């Protein structure tokens, strides 16, 4: 099997993330290394996407939106699957690690998903003639964003960390039902949105640039989730440590 450069980089990122779980001592350089990969790949991304890739037969240059729209929605679906996995793991065994990771992945998923939906709407104007149409793919994607925004709102409103983690874990699992529906909507229903293309029917140069974009956004997502996870974990430690840090109540105050 022959691997191209983007897929080799993806393999390297997966190996690095996997290894740091078992060898924590390498953690301090693994995450900066992945951030450097993300920044480096994204720095040259506009050249590959806007200059090097050939125009498309029917959409001309407008199709170049694919290199930012598709990777971001794919990464959003992956990161929301991580949220569901962490939610399930939390309900099976209560841990602040899985709770913090669930919070981080949901936020990054909402951010990237919202940007992807917005880019899709912009792409709709020159190709369909309208910015928005209530077709199955667009509708399910919009519901996805609204539901996960609700998930993040729930996390903000519940003050008790234990209740917040349990309730949001249940909601994370229920919300995930819409993720495969969004992905399969173009196959299940008659949609204005096109079906997923096969690399066999696309120019190899276009496929290469799409792979580059997918890996660049995957590296970016990994970096964002890691830093958001550290933030969520620090906040959780602060919340859990807070009652113990309070001075003991004075008898006369009681």
């Amino acid at each position, binding site marked *: 099997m022959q691997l191209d450069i983007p897929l080799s980089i993806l393999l390297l990122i997966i190996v690095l993330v996997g290894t740091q779980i078992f060898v924590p001592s390498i953690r301090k350089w693994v995450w900066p290394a992945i951030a450097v990969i993300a920044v480096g790949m994204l720095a040259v991304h506009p050249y590959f996407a806007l200059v090097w890739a050939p125009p498309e037969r029917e959409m*001309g*240059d407008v199709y170049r939106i694919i290199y930012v729209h598709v990777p971001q929605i794919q990464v959003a679906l992956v990161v929301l699957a991580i949220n569901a996995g962490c939610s399930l793991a939390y309900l099976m065994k209560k841990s602040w690690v899985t709770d913090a990771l669930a919070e981080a992945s949901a936020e990054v998923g909402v951010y990237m998903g919202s940007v992807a939906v917005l*880019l899709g709407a912009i792409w709709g104007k020159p190709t369909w003639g309208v910015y928005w149409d209530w077709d199955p793919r667009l509708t399910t994607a919009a519901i996805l964003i609204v539901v996960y925004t609700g998930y993040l709102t729930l996390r903000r409103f519940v003050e008790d960390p234990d209740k917040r983690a349990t309730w949001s874990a249940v909601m994370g699992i229920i919300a995930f039902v819409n993720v495969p529906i969004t992905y399969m909507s173009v196959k299940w229903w008659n949609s204005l949105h096109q079906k997923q293309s096969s690399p066999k029917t696309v120019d190899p140069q276009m496929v290469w640039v799409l792979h580059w974009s997918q890996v660049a956004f995957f590296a970016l997502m990994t970096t964002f989730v890691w830093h958001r996870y*550290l*933030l969520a974990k620090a906040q959780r430690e602060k919340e859990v440590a807070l009652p113990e840090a309070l001075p003991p109540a004075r008898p006369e105050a009681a």
Partner: protein
Amino acid sequence: MNWLVLAQAAAAEAPRMGRIVGGWEYVWACYILTWAGIVLYAGSLFLRRRKT
């Protein structure tokens, strides 16, 4: 036969039916939004981590 050759050449040069011409403003809008999103989200993470 000269008219036939000229007609064929003109047909080859004419834009194909249904082909989108131009549209770079939509492409730029999408790339600017993507980069703005990356910078804003990275900035928000940096500021929130400094606060914590």
